[in-house]
């Protein structure tokens, strides 16, 4: 049953990956016209050099031929070279990936650590002042633009503190260029962007935990657990929370693609050298191969995230069957 389900999902995934990369290429092809990536960087290029460059990059061929060559390369694990700087796309992604994972993982961990107690307290004391306050904060969390929150944090913790001669937090990058890069330096750089990202996670997830906790606590098996004299602590945490966390797993799984696209705006605001920023900059420069590589990678993450969420869901809740 599960094997058949997985096989069908796998086949569907291939179609999705092909479709997404094809659309991306088609969009780039139509948008770039006769532009050759990187020619702006060197004004002394002669027309014949540009023509040679075009041929070298394969841009003189129709899109579908370029696409087949690209797919052929990908099947052999070769994502090609960046059209801007010539280094391999794989090395670019591997370069940026640790930074992005560092940022997103920190935000997710902070999000989970704060969202679970907030959600549980909201459910246990629902209707109370605490609950209302937390609801207001999380409703606000949905509405605040991430880039603006980033700007405000920079304004407060970098600009204003510095103006008053107080210790301030760095506003951009993942580490200091000069004698930086040690643990504390990285943490210092991480604080502001991770706060912005996790604030969004906290407001989303705490709401979900609250409502799913409320639902779980009204179930018969909770009443049974209470009836047999189990302590309230054990009822809430062993029987209640464990079941209430199932939706959260799905949500976290769905955040996987956020590794690339979700953090993009935050990465740009804070100059964080991650995958999202790479994709953003390279798309503006029409670096076909890099953009295709990142798109491929991002799409895989979307698929993997969905799949992971579904499978974990089944593991955690045996009532769910795959058809």
């Amino acid at each position: 049953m599960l094997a058949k389900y997985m096989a069908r999902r796998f086949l569907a995934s291939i179609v999705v990956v092909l479709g997404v990369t094809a659309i991306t290429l088609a969009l780039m092809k139509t948008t770039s016209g006769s532009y050759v990536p990187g020619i702006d960087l060197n004004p002394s290029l002669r027309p014949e050099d540009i023509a040679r460059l075009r041929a070298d990059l394969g841009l003189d061929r129709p899109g579908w031929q370029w696409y087949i060559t690209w797919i052929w390369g990908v099947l052999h694990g070769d994502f090609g070279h960046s059209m801007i700087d010539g280094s391999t796309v794989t090395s670019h992604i591997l370069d940026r990936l640790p930074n992005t994972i560092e940022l997103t993982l920190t935000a997710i961990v902070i999000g989970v650590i704060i969202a679970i107690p907030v959600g549980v307290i909201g459910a246990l004391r629902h209707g109370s002042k605490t609950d209302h306050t937390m609801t207001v904060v999380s409703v606000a969390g949905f509405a605040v633009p991430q880039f603006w929150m980033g700007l405000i944090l920079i304004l407060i913790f970098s600009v204003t503190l510095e103006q008053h001669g107080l210790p301030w937090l760095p506003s951009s990058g993942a580490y200091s260029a000069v004698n930086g890069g040690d643990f504390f330096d990285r943490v210092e750089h991480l604080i502001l962007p991770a706060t912005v990202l996790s604030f969004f996670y906290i407001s989303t997830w705490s709401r979900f935990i609250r409502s799913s906790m409320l639902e779980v606590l009204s179930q018969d098996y909770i009443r049974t657990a209470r009836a047999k004299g189990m302590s309230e602590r054990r009822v809430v945490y062993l029987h209640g929370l464990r079941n209430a966390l199932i939706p959260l797993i799905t949500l976290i799984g769905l955040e996987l693609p956020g590794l690339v696209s979700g953090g993009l705006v935050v990465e740009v605001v804070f100059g964080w050298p991650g995958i999202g920023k790479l994709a953003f900059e390279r798309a503006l420069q029409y670096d076909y191969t890099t953009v295709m590589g990142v798109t491929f990678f991002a799409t895989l993450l979307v698929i993997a995230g969905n799949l992971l969420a579904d499978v974990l869901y089944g593991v955690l809740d045996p009532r769910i069957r795959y058809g």
Partner: protein
Amino acid sequence: MIGPSRVAELDMPGAAIETTTSRPAQSYWNESWERLRHNPIGMAAGVLILIFGVVAILAPLFSAVLTHFQPQSVDLLATFKPPGGAHMLGTDELGRDTLTRLIWGGRVTLGVAFLTVGIALSAGTAVGMAAGYYGGWADDALMRFVDMVLAIPAIFLFILMSILIHPTPVTLALIIASVGWGNVARLVRGEVLSVKQRDFIMATRSIGARDVRVMIRHLLPNVLPVLIVAASLGVGQIILIEAALDFLGLGIQPPTASWGNMLTNAESYFYHSAWLVYFPGVMIFVTVLCSNIFGNAVRDAFDPRLKS
């Protein structure tokens, strides 16, 4: 389900008693409106959005009567004026009046948001309804396409498309809607799948109604509540996306003001002109907050079972 109850008109024993003892017949729409009306926070949020909308529509009037500035009028002798005096909310790096630009920016931002919702709803409804109604291979093909659209990391699509089109407000709405319709299609398909099983649809078809008529006259009214809820919850999200695109320089292009692109340059003037960062952000925040609250109120009104 839709339309006033006909119970009283039937000559049935007990009908008279029923009408006298029960409250007046209420349609689903009336009941929903009553529930919405009695939600003070939801209504307040809705009214605030309405006010923003009216101010945006009347932007030329406001800049003529209230602020006495035009959004694009540059005054290099009055750059970075702090709030107060002739410039109520200060001026930016070109001496343009912030309040005027906020009002005109709201016109663009809200216009794009509502246009996007309109486009996404129309396209999503058409696709979702066709998929749900016809079923079979049409359903499979359309929904796989929807899956694919939703699997695209949206921000790439936005970046690439905005480079292609050099967005105006209308094309920007098209770009954002090109991803947003997928979710609507899923919602509508789900509703249609359940509604089309009901007897009244079979009755309609048995008297020879064409597919298009069944879809527009009989399925659409039943899907409408879902659409209204999706629309009111969607506006806030779309404003956030649009503001982020504008901020990244991919949306509405300067000198046309939008709340997002007013923040693009603000970062450079942190040290002396923090108000340039505050006001546009607060406007985005308040508008999105109100749309979310109003959207939730609408959802609760239409489907009280969902109320948490």
